[in-house]
């Protein structure tokens, strides 16, 4: 069965510093990987996805993520954090033979001014 782990409940980063939100996955076959962001009292918004191709995926709001097959990771990154990036971030995975997307437990990102 597929699963996704976000080992950090919360990440604190100073504004202007680079940020990383970690995600590892377990899936049979090739994974389809996603990152979503949830702002307070709002639904989830799509940031980026990896299906095939270049291991570095660029997404919305300056975010990017690196797919690492040997480490089964898909960490979310941004070179310079903004206070407005503070939100709840979810990593998600889908196995290529399954229709369901499974979400990690989420990581709360705090960007300190």
């Amino acid at each position, binding site marked *: 069965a597929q699963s996704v782990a976000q080992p950090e409940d919360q990440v604190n980063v100073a504004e202007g510093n680079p940020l990383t939100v970690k995600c590892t996955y377990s899936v049979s076959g090739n994974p389809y990987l996603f990152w979503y962001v949830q702002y307070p009292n709002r639904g989830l918004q799509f940031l980026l996805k990896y299906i095939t191709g270049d291991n570095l995926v660029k997404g919305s709001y300056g975010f990017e993520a690196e797919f690492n097959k040997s480490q089964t990771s898909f960490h979310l990154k941004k070179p310079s954090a903004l206070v407005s990036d503070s939100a709840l971030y*979810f990593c998600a995975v889908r196995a290529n033979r399954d229709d369901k997307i499974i*979400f990690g437990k989420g990581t709360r990102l705090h960007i300190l001014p």
Partner: protein
Amino acid sequence: SAVISQKPSRDICQRGTSLTIQCQVDSQVTMMFWYRQQPGQSLTLIATANQGSEATYESGFVIDKFPISRPNLTFSTLTVSNMSPEDSSIYLCSGRFGGANEKLFFGSGTQLSVL
């Protein structure tokens, strides 16, 4: 992209009653799903809403408790039946265009509190 409207946005309900949540998409989506997000936890898939047929439920969720309808490609409802405080959660509707490698769009959610 798609806009998913979900209502009500929040409700406070009494134990033993039922609440129906509506989800309207502004364009035809291939798939629609219902998720639950309990306080401090991740999203858990409840079921896949199938057009014109019975929903496909995940382990731990049953039709009698969470009946789902999807009469057409743009509309679905989820009913939380015979509610208890343990049902207090955020319920999220989502939709997807095209194939399974496409992204999900989400509604803004329904925050349900059961007293």
